[in-house]
């Protein structure tokens, strides 16, 4: 009979300063040294981390009212349009929106120097941001124009709300065509010239709880250097598992919608990001604690790079044309080694996800829990798991 723990028991230990907290990488060593049962008994919480560009990020901002009042209809922050079709002085700034005057890809490959992700990063760095707003004017909201400067501390609310973050797993991108391509997976040289991947592997939160046994709605997390919560499953949440040669594989997998107060986050963990020829986005730091409630949870949390796999996908032809299938699977151990073999050819690899930063997040979260500052939350609702068989839909032209 294996060990069984409850959230309440673990939180009592955290409060008493007696909880045993390890990072996902430390758990791997511990399991190798002492075996799974012993490790599951000893460890209360495992911390994970990831720091990478995460599209589908953005922030709700509530600016406060002006005299006379204004029902903002169009809003720009440092020249980047925000969506204000929600209320008079509320707007949502999305990470991938570009500056109004950005040449985009007209001079291919475009540089995409400043977008919504950069606005969020500037706000959180406490830099002043130019706000421009237009309105049609009403009896209750007569003002039609506004140009002013805002700072994060002076606006009423700033709520980071990222509808899809923290991808469980992701493609390893290669290029089978004979021209260089510029993608959200970076610059990829022709004829299998290089391979880019973007997951922290054995530190990545959702790879360590692949069946969503502990991560659900309401889970308290490290978000952007502050505290955040899992709001829902992310968009494009397809936590399917593929069995191949007896291996348990995640495809792109599950995602999380996460939220938190932007005002308590830090510029180290929210960084404006540009991809040559593709666009701008926001790099986000996320860390999730996994309570070791039983041996099964420990088993998955202890999965190592050798046991976690990414599909290799051709971004030259197959991906843009939405052709299903891939060029095989490679382990994160191979990806991190710097060389993989695709179609019989040795290809050098590069990460887009920062492993040193992921380690720093897992260690920071571990410190918070050890000090008793951060208690675990039991999900108020579980998220769809691989067993639920969520199916992706696609659009067809009329």
């Amino acid at each position, binding site marked *: 009979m294996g060990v069984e723990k409850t959230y309440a028991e673990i939180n009592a230990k955290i409060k008493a300063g007696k909880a045993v907290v390890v990072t996902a990488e430390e758990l791997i060593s511990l399991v190798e040294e002492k075996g799974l049962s012993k490790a599951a008994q000893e460890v209360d919480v495992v911390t994970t981390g990831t*720091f*990478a*560009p995460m599209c589908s990020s953005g922030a709700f901002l509530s600016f406060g009212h002006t005299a006379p009042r204004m029902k903002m209809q169009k809003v720009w922050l440092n020249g980047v349009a925000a969506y204000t079709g929600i209320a008079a002085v509320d707007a949502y700034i999305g990470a991938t929106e570009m500056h109004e005057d950005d040449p985009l890809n007209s001079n291919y*490959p475009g*540089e995409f*120097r400043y977008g919504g992700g950069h606005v969020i990063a500037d706000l959180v760095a406490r830099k002043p941001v130019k706000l421009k707003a237009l309105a049609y004017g009403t009896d209750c909201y007569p003002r039609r124009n506004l140009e002013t400067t805002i700072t994060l501390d002076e606006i009423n609310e700033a709520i980071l709300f990222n509808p899809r973050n923290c991808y469980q797993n992701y493609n390893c991108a290669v290029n089978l065509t004979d021209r260089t391509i510029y993608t959200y997976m*970076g*610059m990829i*040289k022709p004829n299998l010239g*290089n*391979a*880019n991947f973007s997951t922290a592997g054995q530190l990545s939160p959702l790879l360590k709880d692949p069946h969503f046994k502990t991560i659900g709605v309401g889970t308290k997390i490290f978000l952007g250097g502050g505290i955040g919560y899992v709001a829902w499953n992310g968009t494009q949440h397809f936590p399917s598992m593929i069995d191949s040669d007896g291996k348990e594989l995640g495809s792109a997998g599950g995602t999380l919608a996460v939220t938190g107060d932007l005002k308590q986050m830090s510029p180290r963990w929210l*960084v*404006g*990001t*540009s*991809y*040559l020829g593709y666009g701008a986005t926001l*790099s986000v730091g996320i860390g999730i604690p996994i309570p070791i409630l039983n041996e099964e949870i420990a088993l998955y949390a202890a999965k190592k790079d050798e046991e976690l796999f990414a599909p290799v996908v051709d971004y030259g032809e197959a991906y843009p044309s939405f052709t299903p299938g891939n060029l095989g699977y490679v382990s994160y151990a191979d990806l*991190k*080694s*710097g060389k993989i073999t695709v179609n019989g050819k040795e290809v*050098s*690899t*590069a*990460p*887009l*996800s*920062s*492993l*040193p*930063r992921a380690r720093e997040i897992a260690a920071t979260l571990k410190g918070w829990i050890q000090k008793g500052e951060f208690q675990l939350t039991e999900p108020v609702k579980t998220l769809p798991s691989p067993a639920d068989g969520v199916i992706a839909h696609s659009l067809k032209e009329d």
Partner: protein
Amino acid sequence: MKVSPKRIVLRFGTDISVKPIVYRLVKDYDLVVNIVKADVNPQKEGTMILEVTGDQSENGLNYLRDLGVSVQALNQEIVRNEEKCVMCGACTGVCPTGALYMERPSMEVRFDGDQCVFCQLCVKVCPMWAMEVRL
């Protein structure tokens, strides 16, 4: 009159790798050529850093340009802004000489300026704009 040498960076495709371009600079244009650094491999794009002295140096460089060699004066350096770098590793996939590389197992990005041939690819692809050109 003593003329100080020109420092130049050459970049060329695989077709040039098999041609005796340095020999031609010496023989046809009477140039004194010092090879500071060279990475020539018939399988991939080549780079060379030369110090060139001689009255006909401009003619020699035009000969190279006519062949399709990219000729660039070496009066700048690439530096990494440590504040901006998040150690993702995107640059290591495109750096042609391995000047930017991943240290394993830490997966930290290292920059060895001695290996840099100033192609500036890292400046363009760095998602955080952490690689900068200094004159």
